[in-house]
């Protein structure tokens, strides 16, 4: 119901408050905003109760003042709540009238007549329009006043005309009363709006869930002492201490300790991820292992989580290009329908003879057509029916229901769409460029083969590898611990690690080295061209003791994923900075025909430019994660940024995929394709029944029940069709 009072009360959540002085600051900031009448701030519930003059100030203005002093009002949620509450009231009101009207209608249809039945239906429907429909009607008048032909105009004219037909029918009993159809249109229209805003509220909730991941305080080391401070006071360079079970307060790099972290809320990845010294950790993830020290790298708006929240918010605010097209269609459709109705009215009025003979003919072949209509009554009946039947109440549901279901599905799979338009562009992709082999491989080197030239060197290799932080050494350690069940190390002396060369150590008077092979010819017989190699030498006697061949294995699903891309008529391309042998091997194994090794960032950019020049109709998607990928991501029709990559890449992308693997890329494309398809189907269903019935209405060959069935079917079709997105196979 419309709230005409200027005074408005609302409850808004406040973020960032941690002490009593915060409460004071927030209260002052709100109270000093002109137009605010009364304010209470509660620290325990993080809520502000605000009473304000709606004509003088709005929540956005109040929120601005609050953010100036360093806190935030969650007005999105407040707005979503308010809108939902408002529409819910209208919806319930329309349902209350709709139920008795439907009962009367069914009685009428089954031949049970009550005295003044039509009058009763008319009164109920008129009341529905006056209460539940009041806001729609007033919005329609406002739009008309500004010369805009919106859906509200059509709905309002349809509903009003329907009620009017009830009045006419009292005078000319041969004219059917559409009054009950009026309350039905209103009901379905409000149902659509109600579903839409409850979905919006759910979306606001998912943002809220992300926001809740941000811890309030952090423990940092100051002058050698651990001190707890609010996260707002953190600066890059601070050293945080994160205990097991705690959330990591903000993005940083591990300085001390090793642990597993749970990043599932951010990535959807359910397995804990190991973090060692030098690894990046994300604010909001949970430390599952031992205590770690983390050096802060990013705070506030710069953190990964903040970027993610921005993305989700933008995605919800953005309009789909199809929605603009739809607005154009509506702006033509609505005046066309109104013109048609007017034309119908004038036409039958001008040719009453034709009207009578047509009515006689139609009523003789179609049992539901009213008999004995005159020129005027047919004119009124047909023109009203035209206006009423043309209301595509499901139209408002077509796009939002599909996008909402799809966004949820995408997020569940670790993909975030920057805007609704990205869904549509990704759906039409014809070429996809992978920027590195890492997307197709596991990114974790593993031991493929070890060749030893002396017995009993395993323990020595294990002990030396254990002393090194190099990824290949770690792979060796994992191999010996998991594969060979080694866990005791030899007492090494004079251990020294030189970056780029390897580990030197003394054992029983002899010097050994574990690292890069000295000469390629030493090892070339024991490795493949695509292998990374580690060699163990006896430095005292200058003998080669062992050669380890390591590879970065392909992801299990890589070949199948490429196969699926091809099935979808998308050509995969691999442009990698890696060595020729590696790129070639990867491309050939998974079945990529077009590939280029040693590719520089310019090469990637040029490739996309050239492809678009040669095939202007092609839609190119680019997958990347580095700073140097940003230009290519922007140039591509769809930039897919890997979430673990750099911020620049993330900001340049249209879609952010948190899990850097090809399986997620394929799933995301499938979701986009399915969404675009659903939207088109929905639009079809929204118009289908109405357009089918329109010509019948114009010749006066329709019955109110037909109109009702059309309305109900199109709405139900659209909603269930969108919900079916959840069932697509990924």
């Amino acid at each position, binding site marked *: 119901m419309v709230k005409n009072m200027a005074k408005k009360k609302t409850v808004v959540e406040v973020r960032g408050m941690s*002490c009593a*002085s915060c409460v004071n600051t927030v209260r002052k900031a709100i109270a000093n905003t002109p137009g605010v009448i009364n304010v209470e701030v509660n620290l325990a519930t993080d809520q502000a109760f605000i009473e304000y003059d709606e004509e003088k100030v709005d929540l956005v203005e109040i929120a601005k003042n609050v953010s100036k002093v360093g806190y935030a009002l969650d007005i999105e949620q407040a707005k979503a709540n308010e809108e939902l509450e408002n529409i819910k009231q209208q919806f319930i009101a329309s349902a209350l009238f709709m139920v008795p009207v439907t009962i009367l209608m069914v009685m009428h249809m089954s031949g049970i007549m009550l005295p003044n039945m039509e009058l009763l239906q008319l009164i109920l429907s008129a009341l529905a329009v006056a209460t539940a429909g009041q806001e729609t009607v007033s919005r329609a008048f406002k739009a008309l006043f500004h010369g805009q032909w919106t859906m509200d105009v059509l709905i309002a004219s349809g509903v009003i005309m329907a009620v009017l037909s009830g009045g006419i029918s009292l005078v000319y009993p041969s004219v059917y009363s559409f009054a009950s159809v009026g309350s039905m249109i209103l009901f379905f229209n409000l149902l659509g709006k109600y579903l839409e805003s409850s979905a919006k509220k759910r979306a606001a909730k998912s943002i809220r869930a992300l926001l809740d991941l941000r811890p309030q305080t952090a423990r*940092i080391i*100051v002058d050698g*002492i651990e*001190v707890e*401070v609010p996260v707002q*006071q953190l*600066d890059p360079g601070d050293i945080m201490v994160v205990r097991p079970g705690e959330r990591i307060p903000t993005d940083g790099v591990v300085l001390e300790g090793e642990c597993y972290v749970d990043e599932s809320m951010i990535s959807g990845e359910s397995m804990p991820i190991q973090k060692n010294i030098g690894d990046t950790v994300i604010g909001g993830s949970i430390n599952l292992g031992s205590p770690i020290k983390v050096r802060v790298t990013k705070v506030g708006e710069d953190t990964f989580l903040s970027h993610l929240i921005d993305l989700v918010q933008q995605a919800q605010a953005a309009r789909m290009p199809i929605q603009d097209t739809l607005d154009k269609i509506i702006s033509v459709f609505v005046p066309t329908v109104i013109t048609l109705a007017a034309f119908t009215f004038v036409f039958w009025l001008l040719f009453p003879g034709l009207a009578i003979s047509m009515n006689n003919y139609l009523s003789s072949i179609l049992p539901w057509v009213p008999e004995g209509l005159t020129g005027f009554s047919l004119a009124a009946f047909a023109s009203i029916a035209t206006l009423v039947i043309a209301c595509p109440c499901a139209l408002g549901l077509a796009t939002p229901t599909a996008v909402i279901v799809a966004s949820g599905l995408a997020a569940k799979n670790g993909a975030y769409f920057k805007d609704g338009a990205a869904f549509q562009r990704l759906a039409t992709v014809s070429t996809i460029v992978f920027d590195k082999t890492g997307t197709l491989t596991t990114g974790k080197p593993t031991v493929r083969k070890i060749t030893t030239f002396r017995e009993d060197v395993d323990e020595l290799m294990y002990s030396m590898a254990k002393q090194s932080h190099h990824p290949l050494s770690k792979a060796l350690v994992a191999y010996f611990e998991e594969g060979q069940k080694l866990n005791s190390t030899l007492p090494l002396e004079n251990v020294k690690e030189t970056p780029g060369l390897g580990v030197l150590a003394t054992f029983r008077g002899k010097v050994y080295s574990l690292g890069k092979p000295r000469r390629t010819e030493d090892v070339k017989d024991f490795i493949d061209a695509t292998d990374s190699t580690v060699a163990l030498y006896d430095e005292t006697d200058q003998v080669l003791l062992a050669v380890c061949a390591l590879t970065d294995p392909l992801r299990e699903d890589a070949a199948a994923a490429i196969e699926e891309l091809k099935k979808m008529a998308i050509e995969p391309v691999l442009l990698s900075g890696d060595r020729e042998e590696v790129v070639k091997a990867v491309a050939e194994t998974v079945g990529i025909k077009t590939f280029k090794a040693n590719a520089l960032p310019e090469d990637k950019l040029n490739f996309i430019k050239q492809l678009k020049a040669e095939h202007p109709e092609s839609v190119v998607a680019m997958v990347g994660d580095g700073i140097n990928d940003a230009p290519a991501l922007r140039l591509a029709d769809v930039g897919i940024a890997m979430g673990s990559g750099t911020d620049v890449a993330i900001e340049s992308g249209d879609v952010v995929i948190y899990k850097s693997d090809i399986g997620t890329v394929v799933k995301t494309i499938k979701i986009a394709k399915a969404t675009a398809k659903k939207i088109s189907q929905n639009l079809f269903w929204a118009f289908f029944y109405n357009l089918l019935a329109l010509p019948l209405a114009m010749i006066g060959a329709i019955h109110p029940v037909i109109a009702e069935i059309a309305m109900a079917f199109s709405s139900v079709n659209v909603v269930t069709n969108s919900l079916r997105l959840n069932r697509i196979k990924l």
Partner: protein
Amino acid sequence: MKHIDPVCGMVVKEENAKGTYEYKGTTYFFCSETCLNAFKSDPEKYLKEGPLGHMPPEER
């Protein structure tokens, strides 16, 4: 760099410090002049007993 105000125990950023005081070769940073003056008058007391506790200046 952040430091702890030896009088009130608050975390003070070097660039936001309202006062600094060098005592026995160490520089101390203060959240307010009140803390600075308190420290100046009897540094040993605060260094021995430690900060009074976490109290924002307006509530002291």
